[in-house]
């Protein structure tokens, strides 16, 4: 039977892609962020997940406002990264975990989540950067299931709805008949705001409380509306919805394997948390 072996939540920022490309991991600006990953890679070497279920938000690569999903799931044999207009180099394509994708998709529809099913999907930096941070050689030892949440067009799915989606994904994974170790990724946040007169807004206190809640009160953030989240975490801080989906997949308690928090990377409070079910 499939089993969730860990949850890896992390920020993503296009600039990280360029820093990887330019080998700036030891540069004083970047080091505090990249130093969060060697302990996580040591954990990966030990635990060796087979499949990644990655929860993230598309930034206008695979989806546009002509057909803007609320929730979408990939069910494709592979996922390509592509020019997304930010100058981030593309990566080798990502093999899909098709059996698990379809299994989750079918269960989610039956659980009254109105998923968009994607037999082709381009994945942008929100999907690709966590992968490159976990496996810097960019030879993917895992197959993937991308799960995409709308953070573009308000109203967004509520934090509570996202958590419930995570719970449903968790139930589906637990019911998957194949032996597989699944790592769930949540990609986005934490506090940042790119636009408007308040551009550059960061809320360290909120972020630390949110990170703490992942362990001690996982549904804490579901009290907030989408606009509440903008107020607290900045317009793009709402990407923490992906963390909530990811956290929702594990019903019980989790412990922190490794955690890192650094302000700023680009305009963003950059956080990384590896959690393990206990």
């Amino acid at each position, binding site marked *: 039977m499939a089993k969730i072996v860990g949850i890896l939540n992390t920020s993503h920022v296009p600039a990280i892609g360029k820093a990887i490309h330019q080998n700036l991991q030891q540069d004083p600006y970047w080091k505090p962020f990249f130093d969060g990953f060697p302990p996580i890679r040591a954990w990966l070497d030990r635990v060796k997940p087979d499949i990644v279920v990655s929860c993230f938000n598309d*930034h*206008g690569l695979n989806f546009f406002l002509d057909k803007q999903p609320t929730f979408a799931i990939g069910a494709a044999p592979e996922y390509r990264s592509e020019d997304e207009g930010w100058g981030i180099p593309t990566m080798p394509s990502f093999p899909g975990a098709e059996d698990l994708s379809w299994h989750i998709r079918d269960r989610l529809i039956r659980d009254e989540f109105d998923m968009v099913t994607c037999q082709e999907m381009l994945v942008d930096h929100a999907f690709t950067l966590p992968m490159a941070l976990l496996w810097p050689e960019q030879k993917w030892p895992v197959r993937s299931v991308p799960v995409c949440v709308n953070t573009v067009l308000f109203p967004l799915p509520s934090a509570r709805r996202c958590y419930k989606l995570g719970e449903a994904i968790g139930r589906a994974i637990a019911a998957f008949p194949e032996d597989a170790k699944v790592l769930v990724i949540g990609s986005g946040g934490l506090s940042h705001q*790119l636009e408007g007169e*308040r551009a550059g807004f960061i809320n360290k206190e909120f972020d630390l409380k949110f990170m703490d809640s992942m362990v001690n009160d996982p549904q804490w953030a579901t009290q907030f509306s989408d606009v509440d989240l903008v107020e607290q975490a900045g317009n793009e801080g709402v990407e923490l919805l992906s963390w909530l989906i990811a956290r929702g997949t594990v019903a019980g308690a989790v412990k922190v394997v490794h955690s890192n928090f650094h302000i700023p990377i680009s305009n963003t409070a950059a956080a990384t948390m590896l959690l393990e079910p206990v």
Partner: protein
Amino acid sequence: MTARQQKRTIPGAPIFDSDAAREGYALNKMCYSFNSKANRDAFVSDERAYCQQFGLNQEQTRAILERDVLSLIRAGGGVYFLGKLAGGVLGLDMQDIGALQTGMSKEEFKAKLVAAGK
């Protein structure tokens, strides 16, 4: 359009909601086209013509030509789409954009970010 219901607003934090999406569709569609290098090059070679091709209105076109980010947002631009213009076409980074919108110098803006971590 009917009278909008009272919407909750956060000062300085424009929300890309239904009203914005509706007003900004042509602008966002143009920015979405910048996923392709051929389109970015076409824009650079004649910005005004490219705006026209996508049906941008006068104010949107002006704001594009003048790099007036705040106006682009007020005219319905979504930041995930505008970012492709700023980053991929104009070569600005997010601190340039932040400085442009807040009236700070880039160094001041960066200092503000660093200060948020203290």
